[in-house]
Structures are given as structure tokens and as C-alpha cells.
């Protein structure tokens, strides 16, 4: 797939992008699971952005979703460009794995693990380190328990969501 093809988007696509971003923001406000491990649903929005719009527009969508949700709800932990980059990286990786490709279990597993490793463990820890001057080891220890459990739950949900959305796409 050429870059030029990935960059192309029509008005309907743009409007859809705006609405999917709104969906991502709303899903991000919901979470489920027992109190110990709350799983936010924002990642479903990232998966949808990547799956529907590809890595480039998906990343743009991630960026806008971060900006708009900060405008609406304020960014927990302050406005910081790093977290915007984080929001872009997730849909980008999902886009590389899911965009215009059949839904496969290995894709979901690899993409989710990559996002967890690069985005949640790598980038976010780095930002916390920069932002609050926190010790890297301490930041990792704080994050580890959640990131060991949550990805596996996300994979389950991703599978059902992608199957459901691909059904809708065919019907269109």
C-alpha cells in the first residue's frame, strides 16, 4: 500500500473520522471490571481508528481525540505533548496491523502486545519520567501490575469488536 493511497480521504471519510473520534472519547469515559483492575474502553476507539482509517489518519484521529478530550474534560495530569504522541501511536500501530486486512487472532495478539509494550509501558513511562522527574524504575513498578493483566482482556474485546465492525462494513 502506497503512502499516497493512505493519505487520501474524502469529505465523508473526514466526517466519519470526527464521529469515530467522538465515539473514542465517550468510550474512554466508560470502564468495566472489578475495582482492582478497571479496564477503560478508550482502546476500542483506538482499534476502530486504526482499522477504519489506517495508520496515518488513525494517528491523526488519535491526536485529535487527545486534544478534544483535553478541551472537554481537561487532561488528567496536565497538557503535555507526550501524551498526545501516545494517543497517536496506538491507532498507528493498530492501523499497521488491521487496516484493510482480514480479522485474524494473531494480528490482534501481536498488535495489542506491541501497543502495550511500546505505548503503555515504553512511552507513557517515559513521559511520567520527564514530566514529574520520577525515577524510571519506580514508574515501571507502578505500571507493571496493570499492564500484565489488561492486555489479555483487551485482546478478547478487540476480537469481538473487530468481528462486529467488519460485519457492519460489509453491509454498507
Amino acid at each position, binding site marked *: 500500500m502506497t503512502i499516497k493511497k493512505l493519505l487520501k480521504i474524502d469529505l*465523508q471519510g*473526514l466526517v*466519519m473520522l470526527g464521529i469515530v473520534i467522538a465515539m473514542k472519547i465517550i468510550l474512554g469515559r466508560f470502564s468495566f471490571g472489578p475495582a482492582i483492575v478497571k479496564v477503560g474502553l478508550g482502546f476500542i476507539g483506538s482499534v476502530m481508528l486504526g482499522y477504519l482509517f489506517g495508520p496515518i489518519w488513525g494517528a491523526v484521529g488519535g491526536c485529535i481525540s487527545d486534544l478534544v478530550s483535553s*478541551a472537554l474534560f481537561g487532561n488528567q495530569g496536565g497538557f503535555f505533548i507526550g501524551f498526545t504522541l501516545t494517543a497517536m501511536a496506538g491507532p498507528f500501530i493498530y492501523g499497521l496491523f488491521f487496516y484493510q486486512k482480514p480479522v485474524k487472532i494473531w494480528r490482534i495478539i501481536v498488535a495489542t502486545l506491541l501497543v502495550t509494550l511500546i505505548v503503555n509501558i515504553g512511552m507513557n513511562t517515559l513521559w511520567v519520567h520527564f514530566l514529574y522527574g520520577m525515577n524510571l524504575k519506580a514508574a515501571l513498578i507502578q505500571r507493571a501490575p496493570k499492564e500484565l493483566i489488561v492486555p489479555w482482556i483487551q485482546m478478547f474485546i478487540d476480537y469481538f469488536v473487530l468481528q462486529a465492525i467488519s460485519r457492519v462494513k460489509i453491509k454498507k
Partner: protein
Amino acid sequence: MSKILIGRYVPGNSLVYKMDPRGKLLVTILFIFIIFLANNWVTYAIITIFSFLAVAATKLKAKVFWDGVKPLIWLILFTSVLQLFFTTGGQIYWNWIIFTISSYGITNAIYIFIRFTLIILISTVMTVTTMPLEIADAMEWILTPLKYVKVPIDKIALVMSIALRFVPTLFDETLKIMNAQRSRGADFNNGGLIKRAKAITPLLVPLFINSLETAVDLSTAMESRGYRDGANRTRYRILKWSKYDLYELAYFIILVLLLLVFRTK
């Protein structure tokens, strides 16, 4: 839940409200970077006083700001405590396997606590005194220089305003769909992991189909009203700088100068 519709904006009429959102956003973003300039007790005291000046200038009740910090208070405390145990150096007071409490650790933990709280306070000042639409306009203005590296800013601005406009609408839609599915026996809060993951589908699919339909309708409506991609358009909502923004500029410059003078080299 109705909070979601208006965002975090709290109406008011103080000085901070009259400032241009672009200035406020810039100061908020830069605040995170200048907080790094603080590296001793004096500079941390200065930046704390300045932050509370900004908070006081909004003339809002303390509860508004407490609500901003409250959801993160455990995270802040936990982070500070971890920092306390994992920083070594200086005089060591207590040591157990990997945990150490040292003089460096204690100061660092307190610094992190202050940093965390101040960043949240200043961000709260921004979001509480500015309407979401104004913040979005300010963000668009800040992104404008990206035009020169061929980023399609007009498209991004369009997507941004559509997203902002549809968050409340889709939120209502989501609640409606959830209630509709519940009335027919759907259960979003119980059952095992797989069951709950599956329960998200009857929520997402209708929402997604609705969004597709809205996108088709809205883009048709826009085109029939003469929206052409890439055509030059005028602006209806315009932001204006005013004399109040000079106070903000002075605030920021004085803060940076004080920090530069008093920080340890």
C-alpha cells in the same frame, strides 16, 4: 452524567475569563516545561506561589480545584511514596532489601508531589475558565505552523469541530442504546470476562451504524451547502487579543525570570 455535556467549564467573570484562550493554552503548555527549571526549595516556593496566584485570580471556589485534584490524589501519593523508596543518595535513614529511605528520596518525593499538584492545578485553571469550543479554536491556532510541513490543518480543524460537536450527541445516543438493550435483558455489568467482552457488541454495533448514517447525512448536507475540499473559506468565530493578555504575558515572564535567577546551577 450531565456533566459530560458542558465539559468542565465553570461560568465566571474574573480577569482570567477575559483572557484570550490562545494565551491561556500557551501558558498552560509552557508551564509544564518551566516547572523543570525549579530545582531547589526557593524555586519550588516561587512556582507554588505563582500557581496559587493564578488560582486566586479565577475567583472560583476552592472546591472546583479540589475536584480537579481529587481523582488523582491516590496516584499522586502513590507516586511520591514510590519515589521516596527508590531514590538513593545522601544520608540513608532506613534500608530493607530494595527499599531505602534517604535524604535525597525525601526531598525528591516532596518535589514530585508539588510538581504533580501544580501541573494539575494550572491545567484546571485553563479548562475551568475556558469553554471547550474556545480551547479547540486555540488548539487550531497553535497547530497552524504545521501548515508549512504540509499538514492539512483545515481538515484537522474540521474533524476537531465535528468531534467536539458530536461528543454530547453520541453520549446521549450511547446511554439510549444501553437502556434499550437493557430493557431487553442485556447485562453490561455482570458475568465473566468473555461474557462482558461480548456484551460490548450490542452497544457498539448500533452506535457504529448510527455514526455511519450521521456521517453520510452530514457530509451530504455540507456538500449541498457548498463545502468544497481545499477551497478558501472565511472564519466566523474569531479570537481577539486584548489588554488582559498582557497581564498573562507579564505573569509568565516574571515567573521565568525569577526561576532562572534563583535556581541552583
